[in-house]
């Protein structure tokens, strides 16, 4: 059985096609999900891609959170379906309160676009089980509102419970508190990160293939739970 991974398109999404390509590259079926849909078409997992949904009006991700398809995804995520939010998708997950904290403007006030070094901290989530803890990877980072913030209690909890998925290393590009680049929920099925693993699946056009593991990981977790 081929795993079916939904990729949502909001008005203003940019990276839905690259995310779908990454899904196909690892041998799964990419299922396009329009923001106005009220049916998840039987997908096994969902990716919320990068971009500028609704022009980042009000706050990044604030309007997309109320899209009809998000109601279904929120319910499915709470029931255990793997959900990955990349960049704007991470912002949507925080606005939806599926993940704690929020993303605000980069500390340097400039758009950041670079090959970013990361350390995988949690290699047991639905989206990172193909890596090993402590592994260093390089994947592209490109955002304006990439500064992860939360109160001290939440930051302590995330670190204490091993819910920091990836951390920025070799420099903090956007002022994110405690160098947090990606986090997960308590169950480990919902992961959000600012860097773009879907842009690092092909050495010809990206920084390498270090991002592939996010997509192979979810297939492994779907097989394991089948």
């Amino acid at each position, binding site marked *: 059985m081929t795993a079916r991974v939904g990729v949502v398109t909001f008005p203003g999404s940019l990276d839905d096609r690259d995310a779908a390509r990454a899904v196909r590259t690892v041998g799964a079926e990419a299922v396009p999900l329009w923001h106005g849909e009220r049916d998840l078409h039987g997908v096994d997992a969902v990716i919320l891609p990068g971009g500028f949904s609704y022009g980042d009006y*009000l*706050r990044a991700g*604030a309007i997309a959170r*109320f899209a009809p398809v998000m109601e279904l995804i929120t319910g499915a995520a709470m029931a255990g379906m793997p959900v990955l939010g990349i960049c704007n998708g991470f912002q949507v997950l*925080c*606005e939806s*309160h599926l993940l*704690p*904290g*929020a993303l*605000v*403007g*980069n*500390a*340097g*006030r400039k758009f950041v676009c670079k090959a970013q070094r990361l350390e995988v901290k949690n290699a047991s989530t639905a989206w990172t089980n193909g890596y090993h803890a402590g592994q260093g990877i390089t994947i592209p980072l490109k955002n304006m509102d990439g*500064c992860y*913030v*939360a*109160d*001290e209690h939440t930051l302590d909890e995330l670190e204490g419970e091993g819910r920091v998925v990836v951390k920025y290393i070799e420099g903090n590009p956007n*002022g994110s508190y405690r160098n947090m680049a990606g986090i997960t929920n308590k169950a480990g099925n919902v992961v959000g990160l600012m860097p773009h693993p879907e842009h690092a699946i092909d050495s010809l056009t990206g920084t390498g293939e270090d991002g592939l593991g996010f997509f192979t990981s979810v297939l492994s977790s779907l097989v394991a739970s089948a």
Partner: protein
Amino acid sequence: MDVARVVVDVVLKPEILDPQGQAILGALGRLGIGGVGAVRQGKHFELEVDEGVDDDTIAKIADTLLANPVIETFTVSR
């Protein structure tokens, strides 16, 4: 039905970094204006609502959409 104007002001919580406020503070220095110790940038919303829209509804609008309570606080004036 009469229409009322309701104002909702949203500001970042003190512990949240405000790079835009810091940029404004820096610009004040370059303008040669002294005596300003800190600037925090927020958002100002003006809503035209029917008289029948109660305070609880306004609070819900502010709390669920206009502000993100994780990083911001809001005040309502009507």
